[in-house]
């Protein structure tokens, strides 16, 4: 008996769909109910339906928009920096790495350490009196920047995030770079193509899909950043380092406004879904 492609697809999809339904079905339904109710920790079992009130509250909350803007900036900047640095390291060091595989291990150490721990460590490393970085600044220049002061904190967390996650982009690019069939390169070098030109004309286009994937994953991860910022500086003075995740987390657990937190999450999900679905369609049209 031959199955129709449709039936085959359904069978192929079933493990994941079942897994999600069993584990997330109930939480998602309950959370959506909370999103439309006056729900706090006291009224978990008896949420009162209030329609779109939570959504109105969220949309009128300037902190929500600030958090969205912060996350967007943070996500775009860190994703760009990580991809550029990661691509450079992968391509430039590839000839060395082919001979010395251990170099990969050295370069991916940062992303193995828990981001929450990295945040905590930076609290020590950047401390004016207990941290080595300000210490050496004072030793050598008699002065040190205040890395976590209002004017600098954004740059500092961008650098911290970039240093930790460039290895992620690096690893994806390295695998993509090594997967480029060698005969393509050989053919080009027979033609006398110079290395710089070879990269732009031949290697770079081959790595383009990976560049999209890496940039996209890093953007999402930068957008939803939580642990390292939260352990390093919290929500920031006046809420200036509040990312979307921090906003939802604080609304949810710290202020106990479950309905509002859910409404914010639903909005975030809808917007992200629309953007992604549209991006998919555009990509296909372009192809």
């Amino acid at each position, binding site marked *: 008996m031959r199955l129709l492609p449709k039936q085959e697809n359904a069978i192929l999809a079933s493990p994941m769909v079942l897994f999600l339904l069993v584990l997330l079905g109930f939480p998602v339904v309950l959370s959506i109910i909370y999103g439309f109710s006056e729900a706090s920790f006291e009224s978990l079992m008896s949420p009162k339906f209030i329609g779109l009130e939570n959504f109105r509250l969220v949309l009128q909350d300037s902190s929500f928009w600030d958090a969205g803007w912060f996350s967007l900036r943070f996500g775009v900047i860190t994703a760009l920096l990580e991809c550029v640095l990661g691509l450079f390291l992968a391509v430039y060091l590839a000839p060395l790495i082919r001979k010395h595989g251990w170099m990969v291990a050295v370069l991916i150490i940062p992303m193995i350490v828990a981001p929450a721990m990295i945040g905590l460590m930076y*609290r020590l490393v950047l401390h004016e*009196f207990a941290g080595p970085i300000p210490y050496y600044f004072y030793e050598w220049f008699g002065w040190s920047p205040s890395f976590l002061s209002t004017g600098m904190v954004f740059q500092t967390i961008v650098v911290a995030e970039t240093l930790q996650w460039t290895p992620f982009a690096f690893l994806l690019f390295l695998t993509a770079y090594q997967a480029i069939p060698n005969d393509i390169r050989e053919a080009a070098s027979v033609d006398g193509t110079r290395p710089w030109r070879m990269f732009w004309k031949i290697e770079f286009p081959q790595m383009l899909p990976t560049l999209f994937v890496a940039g996209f994953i890093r953007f999402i991860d930068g957008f939803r950043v939580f642990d390292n910022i939260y352990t390093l500086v919290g929500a920031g003075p006046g*809420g200036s380092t509040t990312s979307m995740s921090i906003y939802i987390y604080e609304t949810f657990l710290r202020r106990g406004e479950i309905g509002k937190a859910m409404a914010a999450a639903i909005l975030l999900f809808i917007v992200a879904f629309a953007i992604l679905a549209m991006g998919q369609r555009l990509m296909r049209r372009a192809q």
Partner: protein
Amino acid sequence: MMLSRKFLCSAALAALLTGSAQAEVTVLGWPGGPEEEALRAVTEIYNAKADVAEDDKVELLFTSRDGFFDKLQVDLAAGSTAFDANLIATYSIGRYAPFLEPITLSDEAETVFGDTVLSTMQYDGAQYGVPTDLSLHFLYFRKDLIDALMANDDAKALYGDISEKYLGERLEPKNPEEWSWQDFAANALYFSRSVNPDSPTRYGTVLQMKNLLFNMMVFHSLPRSYGANWMDADGNITVDSEAYRTALEMAKMLFDAGATPADSTSYEYAEANAAYSAGQVAAMVQWNAAASDLISAQPETVTQAPPTGPEGRFTHIHGLGLGLNAAAENKDGAKAFLKWLSTEEAALAYARAGGAPGLATNTAQKLADERPDLVQVGDYASNYGFVMNGGTSKNALSIYEAQAKEFTGYWAGTQSLDEAMSNITASMTELLK
């Protein structure tokens, strides 16, 4: 294949582990630090008693201090039976009260702790917990530096010039026991290199200005001594007051003048202590819990009640204690243990094991030789201790959080004082209605 074996392995292990943890009365304590050691010590005494039934023996549970209250919130709201009694704090009783049950203390409790301390564990007129530890603030200062300042006439003149320039008033260096907040500010400026390049320390003080609710507790002794309160007797929100404005401006002035590190907007307990321990800070207001660390790092340190203001001398106080989980499986056993904890026998044992209970003067005197610091804590608590109107309300935690956000925003310069005041008035009106 491999996965299913993993599943079986961990299932078997999980079953084994749960099987061994048959708790009779499980108590969730404040993890780490002297509170844990003290609770362990008194629990041992309790469990050794002949009249405590085998089923009512106490087993202790300690989780993570990071996110402790977040987890507790979820546990309680979901009706967890993992513990029968749990930690509560003055500022969070209101939030957790719906999931707790009031308890009865022993008859001695009032004489042992005194009314002020017992009231830190009350909400809506009911006793929700037995007090275990008391937290308040000390002024920590370096006696060596202040003595040197007072002995030098040139330094005194400079001190006068600086205070005149920054505070609009010529001040003389004084003994910290007599300090007003103006003296505190003048001292902070004098000992800062940005103001006085010859200062022996880099900063005169260290303010904890991170957007964190606990920092608001450290801060609000200052506005209180200028007469601040959260609301008046009629329930009107009075946060937008001369007192709060004066205090906020003073902190901002010190921050802008460089009397506290420029990173202060990311400082909390650990950072502030590290700065002070490095010997680069002349005086600061900090929790009493830091005393042993700070004194061992800077032996010239002396502790004192926080400075005074036009309306008197004040220190924030709050208590930690243990309350009864409404979903507890062994309520009677838990009640018996909590009742015993409020006896003099238990309180003294708790103090001897390193805890910091708030004891009435007569009780504290019995330990004067072993724990002189408890006499000081008890004295400050009863003479200077305060709780803002609404400080034990259901939303007290959220109020501290809103203040942390608005006030740090003003200090860091992301909003004006007027904006901060109108924002906080709006949030507090919502939270206290």
